[in-house]
């Protein structure tokens, strides 16, 4: 009996965390009970990106996109939609402004401006079934490269496409390949950098989970182009699902002869091994990553020599990031000109961003280079949560910076973000609203960099620590004007005198917030106040006499009993003993308690 309907259930880490595996079981059970298993199939795919509304279930060919599916609604989907063809309205995405139900994925604003190249198969194919990847033209690019193109032609195509490294630096991929090709050696290596470490970033994880073969294919093509027969995927142990799917993919590809000796009957051989890292941020830096694979400490070394000349086991090595490799097969199949027609003058193609923070639609988006921050945050992201005011967006993780509202309309690419004192980074994008204190945000990222500094360079090891001490002083209300100058001087010194990218960029969150939100620093230092009401030490709680009705609720919740007053009379907070826990502020139903 032919298959007439498929239910695609998101199997990304995000949706699995909200129980999509159980949803899948319930759907299967329901279909079994209705004796429809020959006609209707349920399968798990990679990430759809719309993590905010997960678990996602997409019904094809009906083209109905269900959101926030739980066990109960899964039963209803079987009962109503699968058996009777009636759409389960309440699980269709509702546009918050117009309240209109949008049953088709393509009509949901979150997807409208997306162009999916690296994520082309995520949410579409079963990542654990190589046949589905092949059916979507998988390994055809490798086949074309091996049978029709010379390594030089492959490198030329990648160069002409304008593809730049998606891991952070943005170095032209074709040039990197060319440099490694030109290094003379009997043995060369390909490394896939899957050590994604920025807080809140999960682009690479989603690609590995949703379409692992695209990365393997990209690596094999790179291997052919530079003359390598072996590749490593360096992935962190915190990504168990990605590792699991990669293992399946590698063994299936070997079985099919798409990895291993004499691929597709040619004399090209290429195989891949997974190296699991312990999750140190520094190992995303290529020389530290190489040290880690070799069994040494994850510490960077001086460049030059670059890995293209002296890399893994002292052999020429080409390192690219997951998303970069995933872009390679479509470039070969559709042509360099197709790819370079998307994007801006110097940044071609698309970029995957992990949209997080105070935005309505948290999730993964792939957008053309040159899109504005406003489009990403407001059109795709659906604006700021709770109708609050946008304050800043942080791009590039701990190496990036905070971009304020006045630059929301900047078309983003590698160069414009650098010019704003931030960076593309691997694609983390964290949105902040009026309730976020920018000094505190800078402190958060600096704490991260302090933890993750490998300790090799004094500037980074000690400098970041001293900067953090100053920020702590400022947020505790003990800051002085000299501290701000010292902070800036330290930041510039750390930037200038660190060996690797971590130290060279770790002061960026401090510098960019000082540049765009200097008034907040001044408020902390001069007025000893935190405008966003975040830094506890600086908060003072008051009762507004005109609004207080004397209900005693605040006095009852105060854990240190410093709120006094008789019932039905105005209460007063004795600030001497106040521990600034904020309980009274959250309890008052009359808005009579304020904090400054």
């Amino acid at each position: 009996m032919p298959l007439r309907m498929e239910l695609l259930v998101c199997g990304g880490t995000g949706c699995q965390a909200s129980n999509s595996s159980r949803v899948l079981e319930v759907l299967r059970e329901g279909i079994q009970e209705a004796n429809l298993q020959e006609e209707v199939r349920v399968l798990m795919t990679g990430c759809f990106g719309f993590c905010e509304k997960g678990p996602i279930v997409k019904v094809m060919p009906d083209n109905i996109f269900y959101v926030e599916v739980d066990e109960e609604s899964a039963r209803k989907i079987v009962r109503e939609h699968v058996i009777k063809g009636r759409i389960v309205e309440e699980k269709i995405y509702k546009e918050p402004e117009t309240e209109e139900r949008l049953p088709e994925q393509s009509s949901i604003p979150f997807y409208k401006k997306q162009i999916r190249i690296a994520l082309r198969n995520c949410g579409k194919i079963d990542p654990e079934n190589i046949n589905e990847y092949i059916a979507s033209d998988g390994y055809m690019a490798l086949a074309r490269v091996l049978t029709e193109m010379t390594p030089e032609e492959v490198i030329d195509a990648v160069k002409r496409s304008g593809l730049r490294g998606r891991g952070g630096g943005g170095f032209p991929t074709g040039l990197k390949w060319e440099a490694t090709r030109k290094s003379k050696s009997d043995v060369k290596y390909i490394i896939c950098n899957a050590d994604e470490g920025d807080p809140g970033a999960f682009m690479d994880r989603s690609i590995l989970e949703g379409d692992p073969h695209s990365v393997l294919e990209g690596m094999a093509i790179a291997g052919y182009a530079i003359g390598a027969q072996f590749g490593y995927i360096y992935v962190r142990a915190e990504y168990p699902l990605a590792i699991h799917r990669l293992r399946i993919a590698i063994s299936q590809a070997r079985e099919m002869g798409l990895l291993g000796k004499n691929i597709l009957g040619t004399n090209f051989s290429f195989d891949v091994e997974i190296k699991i890292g312990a999750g140190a941020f520094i190992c995303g830096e290529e020389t530290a990553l190489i040290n880690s694979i070799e069994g040494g400490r994850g510490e960077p070394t001086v460049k030059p020599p670059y890995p293209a000349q002296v890399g893994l086991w002292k052999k020429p090595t080409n390192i690219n990031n997951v998303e970069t490799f995933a872009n390679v097969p479509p470039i070969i199949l559709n042509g360099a000109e197709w790819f370079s027609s998307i994007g801006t003058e110097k940044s071609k193609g698309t970029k995957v961003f992990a949209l997080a923070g105070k935005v309505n639609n948290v999730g993964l988006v792939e957008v053309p280079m040159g899109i504005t921050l406003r489009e990403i945050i407001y059109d795709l992201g659906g604006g700021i949560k709770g109708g609050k005011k946008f304050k800043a967006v942080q791009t590039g993780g701990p190496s990036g910076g905070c971009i304020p509202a006045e630059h929301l309309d900047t078309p983003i690419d590698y160069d414009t973000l650098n010019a704003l004192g931030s960076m593309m980074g691997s694609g983390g994008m964290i949105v902040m609203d009026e309730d976020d204190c920018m000094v505190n945000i800078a402190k958060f990222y600096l704490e991260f960099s302090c933890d993750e500094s490998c300790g090799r360079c004094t500037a980074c090891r000690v400098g970041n620590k001293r900067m953090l001490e100053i920020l702590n002083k400022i947020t505790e209300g003990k800051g002085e004007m000299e501290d701000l100058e010292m902070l800036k001087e330290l930041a510039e010194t750390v930037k200038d005198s660190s060996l690797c990218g971590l130290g060279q960029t770790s002061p960026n969150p401090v510098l960019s917030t000082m540049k765009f939100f200097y008034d907040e620093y001044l408020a902390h230092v001069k007025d000893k106040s935190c405008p966003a009401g975040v830094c506890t030490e600086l908060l003072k709680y008051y009762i507004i006499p005109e609004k207080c009705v004397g209900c005693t609720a605040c006095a009852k919740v105060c854990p240190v009993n410093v709120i006094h007053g008789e019932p039905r009379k105005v209460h007063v907070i004795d600030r001497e003993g106040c521990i600034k826990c904020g309980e009274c502020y959250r309890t008052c139903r009359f808005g009579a308690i304020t904090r400054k």
Partner: protein
Amino acid sequence: MIKSIEELKQIRDKYKDVLQNREAEENKIRILVGMATCGIAAGARDTINAIVDEVHKENINNAVVVQTGCMGFCYAEPTVEVRFPGKSPVLYGKVDAERGREIVRRHVKNGEVISEWVLKG
């Protein structure tokens, strides 16, 4: 073991069908089969499976078969609606498996409306 690009293409073409249903292209022909209680009671399940089978057999790539709810013609179930992009839909009544196959061959494939089975509301 795949030993050549031809073998790879064979596998691709073999599984291409599976993915066909997952392409949400808007300009495809849509064949809707009424699958409410009345439709199912009148045998709509056999009809839809026959239609899906025929679409495969005839190698029709530009059509999707979708089930739908009650269309209100309970006396004429199973009902099947054929929608060509940009044209007004044609609704057929009392479509059993055999009629379903014929609708695929004549109407969907060759564009011929089978007027004697068309329901007129």
